């Protein structure tokens, strides 16, 4: 156990951080309108869509991975699309991993945002409208500042949950160094090869990382009223 991390370990760490960053960014972009819709709609579809978004919380990651694999495979609808666009097939690529992770981590971003949006009183939106603010203006000048803790929670949970995924990665990404081999897979490989020391370093790193992230979240994201 002379050096803490091997080159392969560092590559896995780098890939994990890259994946989590890209996925968090995408999730905030698509999760925000979804959460807004779920928080404000009176549509009868609210329950169904909400349940669909929450599915990854209860489903085994292998199930999500399996269906995404089938859909992105050569005979799946997404596979047909990507092939006809000349992108090729997505499984066992970084892009495929990003798409799978977006599905997998979606509820961890949408739900905190939805809760934050639901806590904003209708009156605040009405007030802004009577003061000449358009819906978009209201969103950025009233909703985003008031929902800031929700955005922070969503980003941190989305990031951390993507860092921690394993089953989906194995199903959809496999184990290609520098492409799809993330930290959790690397730990699995170390254990398979009886390299417990290396597994320890990465695992302990994950524990510390997760703890620090949650500590920062709970310390700097006071819930409830300001002050």
């Amino acid at each position: 156990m002379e050096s803490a991390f091997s080159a392969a370990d560092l590559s896995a760490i780098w890939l994990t951080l890259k994946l989590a960053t890209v996925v968090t960014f995408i999730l905030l972009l698509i999760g925000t309108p979804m959460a807004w819709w779920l928080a404000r709609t009176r549509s009868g579809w609210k329950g169904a869509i909400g349940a669909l978004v929450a599915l990854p919380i209860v489903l085994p990651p292998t199930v999500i991975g399996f269906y995404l694999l089938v859909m992105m495979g050569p005979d799946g609808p997404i596979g047909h699309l990507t092939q006809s666009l000349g992108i090729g097939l997505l499984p066992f690529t970084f892009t495929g991993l990003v798409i799978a992770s977006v599905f997998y981590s979606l509820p961890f971003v949408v739900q905190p945002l939805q809760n934050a949006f639901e806590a904003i009183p209708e009156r605040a939106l009405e007030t802004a409208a009577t003061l000449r603010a358009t819906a978009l203006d209201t969103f950025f000048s009233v909703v985003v500042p008031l929902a800031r803790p929700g955005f922070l929670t969503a980003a941190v949970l989305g990031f951390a949950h993507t860092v921690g995924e394993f089953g989906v990665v194995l199903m959809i990404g496999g184990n290609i160094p520098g492409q799809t081999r993330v930290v959790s897979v690397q730990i699995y490989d170390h254990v398979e090869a009886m390299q417990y020391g290396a597994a320890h370093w990465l695992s302990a790193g994950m524990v510390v990382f997760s703890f620090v992230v949650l500590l920062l979240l709970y310390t700097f994201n006071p819930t409830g009223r300001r002050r």
Partner: protein
Amino acid sequence: MIRACFKLARPEFTLDVDTQLPVRGVTALFGPSGSGKTTLLRCIAGLERASGSLHVDGAVWQDETTFLPVHRRPLGYVFQEASLFPHLSVRANLEYGYTRIRPGERRVQPGQVIDWLGLGPLIARADPAELSGGERQRVAIGRALLASPRILMMDEPLSALDTASRQEIIPYLERLHRELSIPLLYVSHALDEVVRLADHLVLLEQGRVIASGPLGETLARLDLPIARFDDAGVVIEAVVAQHDEAYQLTRLDFSGGSLWVGRVNRPPGSHVRARVLARDVSIATIEPQGSSISNILAARISEIRDEGADKALVRMTLGNEQVLLARITRRSSDLLGLCAGMPVFAQVKSVVLTT
């Protein structure tokens, strides 16, 4: 002129109005809770989407094909509770609407509003949460004014406040009334506020407009539910005529005569609004002699309406147009043989100045 025609089904009532409201002075929408007054105001603001049409000063705000979104309606709206944005400073709250209208359309300046509403000391404080309820509501009124509205709407702006805060705000509302030419639509279920502020009264009941007219005329009608209120009465627009320093009294002159009231702290010539409650007026068929009541006015009965078995409400005319109501027992009415057209003397026991 606002021409509003709305239909909107609600669990408690169905709003069904087709009415015209003046865009001048203060128009009060008055009625018990569940009468639809707030809903009507929200429909005019566009916060509620009813079927129907709405024309304001000739402009279409809503018809079969048009629904002007709230943010494009030139209005100011003050909600029941102040609803200041908690993430913005007091000043940023105040200027939220102001910064969102084109400089050419800004007819009100922050300095004026800060001055009018006495917001100077509040501006310095950063967090709206530090303000009292009354102070928050003053900031909310200022914020609405700074959006340079063509109509200012207030939905029971005082009802969430305690009595002290209410007393603190009313003078500001009266000043707005006197000094601003912005018409005000004011929703209230408190008759004393309405009597103090309104020029035009719209009565709602179960989603319908049951009466609409100048305040004085409408209050003097015997056929409306407000006539049955314990504090039913009329308003008298009067002028301060003379002070009697020795007895600390003031004489008010109005079109139907004059009244002596407790010393009013206003220079002669000032316009004041006085309120005379029906229960404070009694009737004599011959001019009373040796009475301690100093306000005895010659009047002519125009209408009598029985209120149950024991009470009667009598409407009298003083001079040409001023009306007075008296609530008396039906027994007295019968003993005196009161009837429409009869000349009588109204004894006014008490006058409440509202301004």
